[in-house]
């Protein structure tokens, strides 16, 4: 295929694609496409697609890394890059052939529809994406230029904030309680349960709740908590913490729906392109590219492939279920198309896999579980009758934010000494100690006093205490 095409060609194809997408029931944002060369694409990738983003050396690192991989031909470039904003912005590689561009257009509408309709993205305020990131960039630049602050200090704080940015609430659709609501809830909880035999029972002793405790309930938003409770931070430091937190919150929905989102876009580009009246050569090229995108990653998970398979399976099961599937699907009021449109709205990766990854699919995809043993990764479970559920559980635990340990602030005045006490919700997965130590260093830097983290190491409860530039591990009991 020749790479020569005009904007007019793209517009013509776009018209047809958009019409089909609408017919299928998709509801994407208004769309802007921007053609760019490979270096611009690399730069967009390094800055998460944002046209404007605050500077930090880590983005330079990420650019160098991408560039190196690209130059050595190890990592290709994505065909497109889409950002969650309204209007939705997507970058197209100028050097791609027309067939690939057509595929990409359809793929982009899948993403855009997902961004617009999936519940996790409600919190991201897509209309303001570009403005927000621009405003963040301007503020950070201003602090860097301020002679009383400067690059070094800003960088020092951003390093620490980046390390902790994902330690925050995961389900942003649930509103965070205000301090007043928390107090009220604590009061309600402290009241004794209703006892129908009050007359014959001794009344239980009433213990008034401790309202002096900070926080009242364990707090997952580490950066925000520190921002609000460390009075030694100056305004610009608090502002930087806010910026980093807001950006993390913006990206969490994308982390949480990677499999669904990529699968969804792949599902629709396939359907749309099958309906388009493509010339023979283009059709072949499309099939080749489609297969490339969806090829399973040996030894890992290709979210495009896994997601695509699931969406296809859901639609098939709701359209024409085989007999013993009937009752799973419940009443046949919805057809397959309606069902998937509903699922794309109300699920995230964890719930999506939990509800729709069936034993048959686990087998078909030949999923397995592996564990590291010494220096090697060894398969521990394969998809058979006994193990498929365990494999599914392991998969669910590792997707989305599941790969980030849950760590909550329990007490900001531990031992009455303003020591920050945190607890890791341990679920058989130990922390990486070297990383924990370095991250605690950052936490200590932000909090300004000793930091203690309770976790479990090799099935023993332990405290990781960080003070005086080093971490000490103390076993509990």
């Amino acid at each position, binding site marked *: 295929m020749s790479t020569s095409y005009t904007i007019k060609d793209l517009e013509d194809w776009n018209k047809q694609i958009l019409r089909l997408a609408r017919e299928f029931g998709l509801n994407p944002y208004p769309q802007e496409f921007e053609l760019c060369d490979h270096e611009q694409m690399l730069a967009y990738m390094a800055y998460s697609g944002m046209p404007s983003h605050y500077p930090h050396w880590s983005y330079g690192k990420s650019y160098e890394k991408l560039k190196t991989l690209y130059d050595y031909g190890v990592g290709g470039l994505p065909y497109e890059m889409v950002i969650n904003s309204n209007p939705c912005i997507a970058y197209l590689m100028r050097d791609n052939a027309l067939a690939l561009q057509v595929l990409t257009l359809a793929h982009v509408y899948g993403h855009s529809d997902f961004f617009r309709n999936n519940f996790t993205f409600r919190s991201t305020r897509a209309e303001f994406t570009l403005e927000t990131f621009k405003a963040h960039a301007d503020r950070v630049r201003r602090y860097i230029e301020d002679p009383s602050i400067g690059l070094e200090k800003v960088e020092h704080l951003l390093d620490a904030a980046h390390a902790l940015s994902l330690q925050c609430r995961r389900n942003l659709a649930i509103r965070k309680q205000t301090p007043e609501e928390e107090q009220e809830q604590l009061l309600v909880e402290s009241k004794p349960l209703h006892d129908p035999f009050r007359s014959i029972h001794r009344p239980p002793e009433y213990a008034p709740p401790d309202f002096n405790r900070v926080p009242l309930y364990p707090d997952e938003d580490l950066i925000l908590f520190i921002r609000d409770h460390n009075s030694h931070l100056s305004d610009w430091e608090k502002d930087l913490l806010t910026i980093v937190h807001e950006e993390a919150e913006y990206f969490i929905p994308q982390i949480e729906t990677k499999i669904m989102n990529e699968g969804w876009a792949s599902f629709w580009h396939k359907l749309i392109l099958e309906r388009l009246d493509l010339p023979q050569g283009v059709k072949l090229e499309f099939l080749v590219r489609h297969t490339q995108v969806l090829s399973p990653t040996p030894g890992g998970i290709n979210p495009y492939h896994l997601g695509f398979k699931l969406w296809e399976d859901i639609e098939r099961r709701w359209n024409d279920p085989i007999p013993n599937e009937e009752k799973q699907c419940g009443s046949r009021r919805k057809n397959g198309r309606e069902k998937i449109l509903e699922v794309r709205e109300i699920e995230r990766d964890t719930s999506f896999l939990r509800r729709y990854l069936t034993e048959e699919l686990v087998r078909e995809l030949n999923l397995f579980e592996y564990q590291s043993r010494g220096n090697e990764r060894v398969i521990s479970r394969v998809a058979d009758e006994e193990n498929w559920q365990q494999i599914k559980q392991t998969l669910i635990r590792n997707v989305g934010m599941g*790969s980030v340990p849950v760590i909550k602030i329990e007490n900001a005045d531990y031992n009455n000494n303003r020591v920050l006490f945190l607890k890791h919700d341990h679920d058989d997965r130990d922390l990486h100690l070297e990383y924990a130590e370095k991250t605690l260093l950052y936490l200590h830097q932000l909090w300004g006093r000793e930091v203690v983290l309770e976790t479990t190491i090799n099935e023993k409860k332990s405290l990781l205490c960080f003070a005086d530039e080093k971490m000490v591990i103390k076993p509990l009991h």
Partner: protein
Amino acid sequence: METIFRSYPSSSAQRSDRSAGDRLRHRQKVREAIRENIADIIAEESIIGKDRDRIIKVPIRGIKEYRFVYGENVPGVGEGAGEETRPGQVIGKGQEASQSQHAGDRPGVDYYETDITLDELIDIMFEDLELPYLERKHLREIEIEQQYRRKGFRKKGVRVRLDKRRTARSRIKRKLAASRHNETFQMQAERFPFHNDDLTYRHSVSEIRRESNAVVMCIMDTSGSMDTMKKYLARSFFFLLYRFLCTKYQNVEIVFIAHHTEAREVTEEEFFHKGESGGTFISSGYHKALEIIQQRYHPSLWNIYVFHCSDGDNFESDNSVALQAAQQVAQLSNLFGYGEIKPLGSGYYGNSMIPFFAQLQAENFQTVQIQRKEEIWPAFKIFLSKDRAREDAA
């Protein structure tokens, strides 16, 4: 139109490179990291004895971005690639899998290879050192007439330096002036020859530059007890010394003296690769050095740096002679060092010359002990500090 296509602007080539600043900052951080690990890097065998302009690849740990992450005991899930999978099958090594998963969910060791010229590396090395101001006596600088430098034009000169262009120009000027002066002057006059006044010569002055010379005398014990490891350590040390002096002096020569019971001047190749056997008379090496200094490197013209590496296993009978010779060497040289190399685990050697050399009363004499390669850099710093101390005292 609810879909907008923005075409690739043809002027995009000149569009600013947005990541330039962050890349620069990242490179600075990498450089800092190199500096912190300099001791490890210079202990790498590969850089020692390499060409100056050669680009070397230095593997350094990437700057990690730490977060709370899970450790090793975490199982993952993969997709089978078609062939049968069974429990117990090994699917890969170490961290490879983390590539295919979401970025950052598991720590990977990222190693970069940074291209850096040896010169650059040496710069970084010596930045770290807070360069001592080396003694450099005026006496030891030779004045050399180095080269000629152009300096303006003269009307007189030798024919070879005639500037034809300027000469021709000055003739034209004269011709124009003449025509203006004298209206009747016929522009189309048949001839207008060059005059002596037209001739312009380039003028040049000879520059006198001071050049400082240094000679490094590497003396090494090549007796049977010096094994490859010891030689390697010695070599690393000599390498550093040589490179360091190259940054300080314009002209650095290097002399290799190998000794066992007798000393010989040898080539670099022989010095490092040829094993010998037999006993050790340290004094023989010093005598040879003295002899060479006398013949070729007069102390009034040369800054002399002498370094001797041995394992300290000297014949008892030679000790007092060695001490005397060392005294003489110390008097003649800027800096005189004795490095005793005793790699750990290479067995116990009863003898050490270090306590013995303590008797030597010279400010510019320094003994260091090197046990493993990580100690080369600290030892080198100690060695040079002697020179500095002396400056301060002066």
